[in-house]
């Protein structure tokens, strides 16, 4: 991991199939098909090597982006938990009244 610190390795790694990989793969594929269309070639049938390369690049980038994303969110969660534990006076749970406290006696008027 080039951009991530060592503690990020303690997080569960993303699966090979993950949201960012699929999306970037699809975007790479669409880029290849778009280039085919601009050069007046059959979009899906031509340049399969180009499509494969762009899908692979997108998938690779998506995987590492997912790793970076999960580390970022984990760090945010940890910092938030630490702040809450260090400032308990700001996060006191209010006493919520139960229904029996609020309910009045029933006096039928017939």
């Amino acid at each position, binding site marked *: 991991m080039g951009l991530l610190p060592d503690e990020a390795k303690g997080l569960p790694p993303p699966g090979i199939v993950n949201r960012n990989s699929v999306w970037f793969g699809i975007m790479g594929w669409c880029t290849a098909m778009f280039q085919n269309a601009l050069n007046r070639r059959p979009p899906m049938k031509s340049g399969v*090597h180009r499509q*494969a390369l762009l899908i692979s690049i997108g998938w690779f980038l998506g995987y590492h982006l997912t790793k970076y994303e999960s580390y970022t969110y984990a760090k945010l969660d940890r910092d938030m938990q630490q702040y809450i534990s260090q400032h308990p006076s700001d996060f006191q749970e209010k006493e919520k009244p139960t229904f029996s406290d609020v309910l009045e006696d029933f006096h039928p008027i017939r």
Partner: protein
Amino acid sequence: MPLQRLLLQTASVSKSVVRSAFTARKPDNANPNWLRVGLAFGSSAALWALLLKQHGEDVAEYNRRSGLE
């Protein structure tokens, strides 16, 4: 008059003959450039190998850390 010549664009044109390295070619889709095709497929295979290797290492590292700690 010579001062005005400096403002002319032709004054900056080189007097020597310059040839570009690029040649224009009509796109020939019937005969693929097999070197480029091979490089593209090879790079895709290399990227997948790198990704799967990295994933295996990540899973092993995570199991190692979570198993002990």
